[in-house]
């Protein structure tokens, strides 16, 4: 049996190994290059903290999914996240740090309108792509052409018209407005008032209150005294809870055909569970309800995976409202980076503008203002709810979709006093 020269074999093996190692190393360098840094601030404390934590979990799930596949263009994704404490005053500083110190490649906006509005001038000035995160009309005045919001609404018309039409179909002639004195709720209420006036609805009560008010008995009494047909409320989570309670205690009168519309917080699992039967009869906006008329590829799988993680992270166990839409932000960014083969902000923005995006929350196409071309603000009526039962909210028939028409799953029960029982 012929034996080779061990010395020669070693030399050949060495050269071969060196060549192979170089090839592997270059591949590895490509696959494990510097991570793509995506920066954002998102409320982890304060009034928006509960929503912000759930939203961040959705985004982290996308990051983990992408990294498990090897990253994007061979680069892992890294999220750099700061808590803005639900405080708009903190966000300009945080985003400046993300850009100048952390040197992030891409930006996602904070959750909510109030913390997002202050950073809009900064991103426009620097010509940066910004993915919006459930804010409302923040680009109305700035007109930044690299802004893309993940929220399924557009302007106050797309939000309020479904609610208003339901009232008008039932003979409503008068309306009352109750709105927090904050960016989101005032923008929404102002648009709603204009639309109501345009459609001949007479405003009989119009009140704005300071954010974090927690006692609404007197305001609900005043609304009751003004005998409106429709009550439109634009409020933040803690206020929404206090309003629902006060309405159940004081009553709003027999004239009211529908009440609700723009109450943030009534989409969060823990709040819905706590209020239980007190929610019956309220009509409010949401981004998703588990009705049979709503089916998007990948959404159910996401929600079941989310539920497991949410239990560990102690965040909203349902996760209907924000988490899937945050996952969708990641999906859109991933598709844009792959399609443009890089991180050029202008190229990414052009892709975002020109493409219909396939996401777990359905197809998204953007208008020039960076909002959804086909807005779908779901107005749902809470019905048949019991107390202390989180699981009931996973069942169809508890949040009946009244509009928009393609997703409609039932009819409005009215007047409110009858619907609540």
């Amino acid at each position, binding site marked *: 049996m012929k034996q080779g020269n061990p010395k020669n074999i070693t030399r050949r093996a060495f050269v071969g190994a060196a060549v192979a190692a170089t090839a592997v190393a270059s591949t590895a360098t490509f696959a494990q290059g510097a991570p793509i840094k995506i920066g954002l601030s998102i409320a*982890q*404390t*304060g*009034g928006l*903290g*509960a929503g*912000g*934590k759930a939203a961040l979990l959705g985004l982290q799930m996308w990051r983990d999914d992408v990294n498990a596949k090897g990253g994007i263009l061979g680069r892992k994704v890294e999220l750099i996240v700061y808590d803005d404490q639900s405080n708009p005053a903190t966000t300009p500083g945080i985003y400046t740090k993300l850009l100048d110190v952390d040197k992030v490649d891409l930006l996602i906006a904070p959750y909510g309108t109030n913390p997002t509005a202050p950073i809009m001038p900064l991103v426009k000035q620097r010509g940066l792509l910004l993915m919006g995160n459930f804010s409302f009309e923040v680009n109305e005045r700035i007109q930044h052409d690299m802004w893309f919001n993940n929220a399924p609404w557009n302007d106050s018309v797309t939000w309020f018209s479904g609610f208003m039409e339901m009232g008008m179909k039932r003979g409503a002639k008068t309306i009352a407005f109750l709105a927090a*004195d904050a960016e989101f709720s005032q923008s929404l209420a102002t648009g709603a008032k204009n639309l109501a006036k345009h459609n001949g609805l007479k405003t009989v009560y119009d*009140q*704005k*209150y*300071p954010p*974090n*008010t*927690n*006692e609404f*008995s*007197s*305001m609900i*009494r*005043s609304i*009751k*005294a*003004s005998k409106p047909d429709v009550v439109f409320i634009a409020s933040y*989570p*803690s206020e929404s*809870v*206090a309003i629902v*309670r*006060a309405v*159940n*205690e*004081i*009553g709003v009168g027999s004239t009211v055909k529908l009440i609700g519309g723009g109450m943030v*917080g009534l989409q*969060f699992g*823990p*709040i819905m569970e*706590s*209020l239980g039967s*007190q929610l019956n009869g309220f009509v409010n906006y949401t981004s998703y309800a588990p009705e049979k008329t709503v089916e998007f590829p990948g959404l159910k799988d996401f929600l079941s995976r989310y539920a497991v993680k949410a239990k560990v992270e*102690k*965040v*909203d166990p349902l996760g209907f409202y924000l988490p899937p839409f945050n996952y969708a932000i990641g999906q859109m960014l991933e598709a844009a980076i792959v399609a443009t083969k890089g991180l050029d902000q202008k190229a990414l923005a052009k892709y975002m503008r020109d493409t219909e995006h396939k996401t777990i929350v359905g197809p998204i196409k953007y208008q020039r203002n960076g909002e959804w071309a086909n807005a779908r603000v779901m107005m749902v009526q809470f019905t048949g709810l019991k*107390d*202390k039962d989180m699981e009931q909210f996973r069942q169809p028939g508890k949040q009946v979709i009244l509009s928009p028409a393609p997703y409609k799953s039932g009819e409005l029960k009215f007047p409110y006093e009858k619907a609540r029982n």
Partner: protein
Amino acid sequence: MFSWDLLIGALVFGLLLGCFYAAVSIGLSLSFGLLDVPHIAHPSFLVAGAYATWWLAGFGWDPILAGLFLAPVFFVLGVVMYRLYYAMFEKHGSDAGLRGLAFFFGVAFIIEVCLILVFGVDQRLVEAVYIGKSIDFTDDLRIPMRLLVAFAAALLLTIGLTLYLGKTYMGRAIKAVAQDQIALSLMGADPVKVKQWAFGIATAVTAIAGALLIIIGPVDPQLGRIYIGRTFCVVVLAGLGSMSGTLVAGLILGVAETIVLTFFGASWAPAVAFGLLLVMLGVRPQGLFGR
């Protein structure tokens, strides 16, 4: 839009809300008003009491009962807190007030962060037979039962503390230490022990007031920040250390806020507390019932 119905309603709701303000301020009246401890963490203790109540309510406890059960636990907490404050600041000199302010500011933040870590950032609510229901006097005047519960609890707290401070040996010692602690020590009593006892009572009261806080509305770990202004306003308006004054000041604030809110707009309501405070400091700096 004025109507007599609205005015009567505003007065009734103002009185009920005022009692609640008195209940959440009365502990501060004891710690800040009588003991001169700059207890800026008082509202954070209220929120901690509210969360502890929520935790016990999860086992089926009534919130008021939970508040009463927690009071002794908070008493011990208060005693420990005062010992710390005394050992670190009061014992060492005359600038204890300013340094103590920083200390209690830090304590407030620590409580907030601990609540976030333990309970998360979600808002918490409790359920009880008297929450979400009302007593209907007329169709236009329905009074939420939770406000009536807060009203009754505030009255009982005020009466109880007034009797305790006026009729018991330790109560009189607390009043004495507020007036002249050197004289008290010359009579053989230990002012530090009296003060730690008083601070314990002030903290125990926050457990009950915390239960009322979560009965009135949802709580989140940072809710205490909103109550800093209101509670200090009530205590200063009352006159430092006056228990009955605290009730009266709470009622004035509650009625003024509700009337302003009903007839002039809700946005003006938060300005009422500080407006009243400014007027009082200008006209009668020692407060309504001040020493």
